C-alpha cells in the first residue's frame, strides 16, 4: 500500500483556482476523506491524485516516487465513481474480471481472485446478473469488487454512495469501512456528506473555496474546528455560533445575556482579540444543559422530537436561535422561557475578524 504526498499541488481553470496550492500526506493504509460543499475542489483534488486531471503546478508522489505526469493506468490505483460505471453488456463476473484481463492475468488466477472478492462483498449469488438487473446498492458492490480485485496501491472513491437511497447508504457505509479495516488499503474518499466523512474517515480534510480549511481526525474537526466554516459544516445541526462582545472575562450576548468565560481562556482571548472586543462564542448542541439557574435566558422557538432525543430551538432574540439537545420526552410549548448553562470544557471561541478559532494553548 502506498503513501501519497501532495506537494504544492494546484489546479487552475483559466485564471480561477479550482484547488489552491495544497500540501497533504496520506499515509499508507489510511482512510482519508475529502469533505466539502460542491465546487470546493475536493473532486478535482481526487482526480489529480488519480491522474484523470493534470495538475497546473506541484508534485504528486506515491511512496516517494514522482507520479505527477504518469498516466492513470500506470499509477496502480483503483477509482470508484459515483455512478458505478459498470459495463452494461457484461455480467457482474465479467465486470469484476475485466481489470485483471487487461493486466493479462492467467485465467485460473483471475477466477480465484474474482471469487475471493465476491465472497468478501457477499455478491456470489449475483455473479451472473447484468448491471441493469441489479439494485443500486448491488451495483455499487460490484463496482467496489471490480476496484478491490486489482489489489491496487490506493483506492480513490468519488462519492460512491451519492447515488444510493438513504437506507442503502447507511449499510454500504459500514461495509466499505469494514472492507478497509480488513484490507488496510490506502483510501481517499470524496463526499459532501459530513456524516459519511465523520463515520468513515481516519482523517477528515475539510475543503471550501479551493482551500483546505482543516485536516484532522473526526474528533478534532468536531470538537476543535479550525474556523467558523468547519464549525458550521460539521455536525447536524452545526455548532451554535453566537456573536458577542468580550470584556472583563465576560461575553455579552444578544438578549441581555452574559456568559462568564472559563479562566483558562483568558490568555488566549487577550492575545487574539484583546481585552475588549467582538468575539464569537461556539458550542455544540449537546454542550448546553437546560437548568433553571443557567446564565443564558431564552424563549422556546420550537422543539423537534427525534426518536431518541429532543432538539430545542431557543431564541436569545429574534435574530439569534440556538440548538440545544435535551433528553427524550422534554417538551416545551413555543414561547415558554428556558435557561441553559454550558459545559465549560466544550465551549469554543472564534475571532470574528479572521473567522479562525482561538486556541487555548496559544495560537500556533
Amino acid at each position, binding site marked *: 500500500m502506498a503513501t501519497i504526498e501532495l506537494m504544492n499541488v494546484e489546479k487552475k481553470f483559466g485564471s480561477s483556482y479550482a484547488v489552491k496550492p495544497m500540501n497533504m500526506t496520506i499515509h499508507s493504509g489510511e482512510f482519508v476523506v475529502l469533505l466539502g460543499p460542491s465546487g470546493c475542489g475536493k473532486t478535482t483534488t481526487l482526480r489529480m491524485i488519480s*491522474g*484523470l*486531471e*493534470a*495538475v*497546473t503546478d506541484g508534485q504528486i508522489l506515491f511512496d516517494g516516487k514522482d507520479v505527477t*505526469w*504518469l*498516466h*492513470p*493506468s*500506470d499509477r496502480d490505483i483503483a477509482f470508484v465513481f459515483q455512478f458505478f460505471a459498470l459495463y452494461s453488456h457484461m455480467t457482474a463476473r465479467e465486470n469484476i474480471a475485466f481489470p485483471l484481463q487487461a493486466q493479462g492475468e492467467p485465467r485460473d488466477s483471475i477466477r480465484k481472485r474474482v471469487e475471493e472478492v465476491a465472497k468478501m462483498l457477499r455478491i456470489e449469488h449475483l455473479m451472473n446478473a447484468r448491471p441493469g438487473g441489479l439494485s443500486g446498492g448491488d451495483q455499487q458492490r460490484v463496482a467496489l469488487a471490480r476496484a478491490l480485485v486489482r489489489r491496487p496501491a490506493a483506492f480513490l472513491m468519488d462519492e460512491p454512495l451519492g447515488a444510493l437511497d438513504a437506507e442503502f447508504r447507511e449499510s454500504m457505509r459500514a461495509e466499505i469501512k469494514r472492507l478497509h479495516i480488513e484490507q488496510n488499503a490506502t483510501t481517499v474518499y470524496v463526499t459532501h456528506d459530513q456524516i459519511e466523512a465523520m463515520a468513515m474517515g481516519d482523517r477528515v480534510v475539510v475543503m471550501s473555496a479551493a482551500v483546505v480549511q482543516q485536516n484532522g481526525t473526526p474528533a478534532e474537526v468536531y470538537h476543535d474546528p479550525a474556523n467558523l466554516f468547519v464549525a458550521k459544516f460539521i455536525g447536524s445541526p452545526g455548532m451554535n455560533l453566537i456573536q458577542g462582545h468580550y470584556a472583563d472575562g465576560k461575553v455579552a450576548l444578544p438578549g441581555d445575556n452574559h456568559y462568564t468565560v472559563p479562566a483558562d481562556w483568558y490568555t488566549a482571548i487577550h492575545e487574539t482579540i484583546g481585552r475588549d472586543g467582538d468575539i464569537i462564542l461556539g458550542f455544540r448542541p449537546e454542550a448546553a444543559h437546560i437548568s433553571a439557574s443557567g446564565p443564558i435566558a431564552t424563549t422556546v422557538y420550537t422543539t423537534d422530537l427525534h426518536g431518541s432525543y429532543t432538539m430545542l430551538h431557543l431564541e436569545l432574540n429574534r435574530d439569534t436561535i440556538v440548538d440545544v439537545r435535551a433528553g427524550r420526552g422534554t417538551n416545551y410549548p413555543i414561547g415558554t422561557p428556558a435557561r441553559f448553562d454550558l459545559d465549560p470544557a466544550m465551549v469554543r471561541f472564534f475571532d470574528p475578524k479572521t473567522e479562525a478559532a482561538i486556541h487555548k494553548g496559544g495560537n500556533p
Partner: protein
Amino acid sequence: MGTRASAPRAPATISTRVDKVGLRPKVTRAIRAFVVVILTVLILLPVVWMVMTSLKSPSDVVAVPPKIIFEPSIESFIFLVTERVQFPTRQEADEFRARDDLKWYEEKVAERGQKITRVGDFPKQLRNSFIIAGTSTIFSVLFGVLSAYAFSRFRIPGEGDLLFFILSTRMLPPVAVTIPIFLMYRELGLDNTYFGLILLYTTFNLSFSVWLLKGFIDEIPKEYEEAALVDGYTRLQAFRKVVLPQAVTGIAATTVFCFIFAWNEYAFAAMLTSDATRTAPPSIPSIQGVGRIEWETIAAASLVFLMPVVIVTFALRKHLLRGVTFGAIRKG
C-alpha cells in the same frame, strides 16, 4: 480536452506536461476560425453578389469580366416599383429628357430612354405577401399553441395516433398535392382569394407548429399551472398568465419558422393566385424588363423580398437560438 487523461497513451515518452499540451487550444482555435471564415464566405457570396448586382447600373450588370468596383446606382429600385415604356426613337427620348418639370426618378429613367407610365405591380405583390403570410402565421401559432397545450396536458384518447396523423400531413411534399388542391379550390371558388392561401398555409404550418410547441410546453412543469389552479385561477387564466409567458421562446421560434414558410412559398402561390392576389415569390423571377432582362431589377426585388425575414429573424434571434437548442429539437 487536452489533459493527460483524454489524450491517447503516448507510446514512447510518458510525460505530457500541460504547458506543452497548452499550445494545442491555440492551434485548434486558428483552424476553427479559418473554417468559419471559409464557410461564411461560401454562404454569403451569392447574397453579396445579389446586393452588388442590385446596385449596379444596367451596363455594369452585364459587363465582362464582372465588375467588382463600380459606381453604385439605385436605378434598379426605381425600375422595380415602376412600369415603363421605351421611347420609340432617340429623338423623342431626348426631347423628353430636355423637359425641366421632371422628378429626379423620371430623369433617371429617361436617361435610359424610358418613360414611367404607372406604379409597378411589385409593391402590391409585396403587400399581398405580407397579408397572406402574416395572417396565416398568426393563425398557425394561435391554433398551434392551443392544441399543443391540450396534447401536452390532457389525457387525450388516441393521443399518439392523432399526433402521428398531424405529423403525417408533413410527409407529402406540397408540390405533390398542388393539382388536386388547385381543382378543389377552383370548385369551391377559393382560388385567387386571400382566404384560400391563408387557409392553405395555416393548414401546412399547423402540424409543424403543434409539434414544435408541444416540445416547449412539455418542458414547462405542470406544477406551475397546478399552483395557479389551487390559488384560485381557472385553467384558461392559468394558461394565459403562467404558461404563455414561459412559452415565449417557443412561440417566437415557431412564429419565425411559420412566417418563413408562408413568406417563401412558391408553388401554391404560382398556381392559385393571379393579378389581384399574386404574392411576391412567383412574380420575382418573371419580372420583365423593358427590351431586355433586367438582372439588376430582379436582384433588387430579391433583396427587398429578403428583408422582412432578415429583420424578423434578427429581432427574435435570442429566442430562436434558445428555441432550437432547448425545445423540440432536444426532445425530438
